[in-house]
């Protein structure tokens, strides 16, 4: 993973995180937004413009790839690079959570 990807995506925006997280299975933009709403109990909503922009950028940067087309809707899927970024983010979020409980993490 090059430094540019790290700089842009670690840490990533909340919308970005949920979009990448959902794309561990093939999904289109509206499907992702529904899934995120359900996962977060409606706390996190992603607008159409934000969704489209994030998907385009992630595809360009190789974090996700075009999977198939269904009724004029593009389905995307996470790539290997995307998995790496997601793993880094998850590790960071876990650390934040553990530290917030007043516990230190091992080096």
């Amino acid at each position: 993973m090059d430094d540019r990807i790290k700089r842009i995506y670690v840490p990533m925006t909340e919308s970005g995180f949920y979009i990448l997280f959902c794309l561990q299975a093939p999904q289109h933009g509206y499907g992702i937004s529904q899934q995120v709403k359900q996962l977060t109990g409606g706390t996190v909503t992603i607008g159409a413009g934000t969704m489209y922009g994030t998907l385009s950028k992630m595809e360009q940067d190789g974090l996700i790839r075009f999977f198939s087309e269904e009724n004029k809707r593009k389905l995307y899927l996470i790539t290997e690079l995307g998995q790496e970024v997601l793993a880094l983010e998850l590790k960071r979020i876990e650390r934040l959570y553990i530290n917030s409980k007043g516990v230190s993490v091992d080096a």
Partner: protein
Amino acid sequence: MRKTLFRYYTIADYMEEEDWLRREHQSGWKLISMTIPGIYTFESCAPEDVIYRLDFKNNEQTEGYMQMAADFGWEYFDQCMGWLYFRKPAAAAGAEGEDELFSDNASKAEMAEKIMKKRYIPLLIIFFCCLLPNMFNSMNGFMGPYSTFFTIFFGIMFVVYVFLLLHCGIKLKKIRDQYKE
């Protein structure tokens, strides 16, 4: 019944324009079309709370984007100078919690940045490369017998431009900084 109103919103006033269109719809006037330099045609309709959103796409919108907007419940009804006009009944947006095209700070800041890059900077270039040189030429009498006329013309343009550039520059920067992390 139809009515036509004239309003001038600069490239930095899109949020005010959205609010105004929403108020018009609440009082029973639905926007049909918008053309430069600010002619809005409305059609009478049942008063309803409808959210209007403008998206600056600079004529680069794809079919995929329009499909996604439709999936999210946005009705696209017009475009003007690279701006797309969308609307969605507030009731539908409330149920879905999605009353915005750009839902997070990063993408809101990005839209302001895009307007700066694709609209504001070209305006600056026109100002410095076309308006100023022509104004100085006419002030120095290089435009022959009509120099006085041109001096007045460019003088008015100069004032308008300075006002527009200051207003838009300050406001777009403010919008961007407000959302930029």
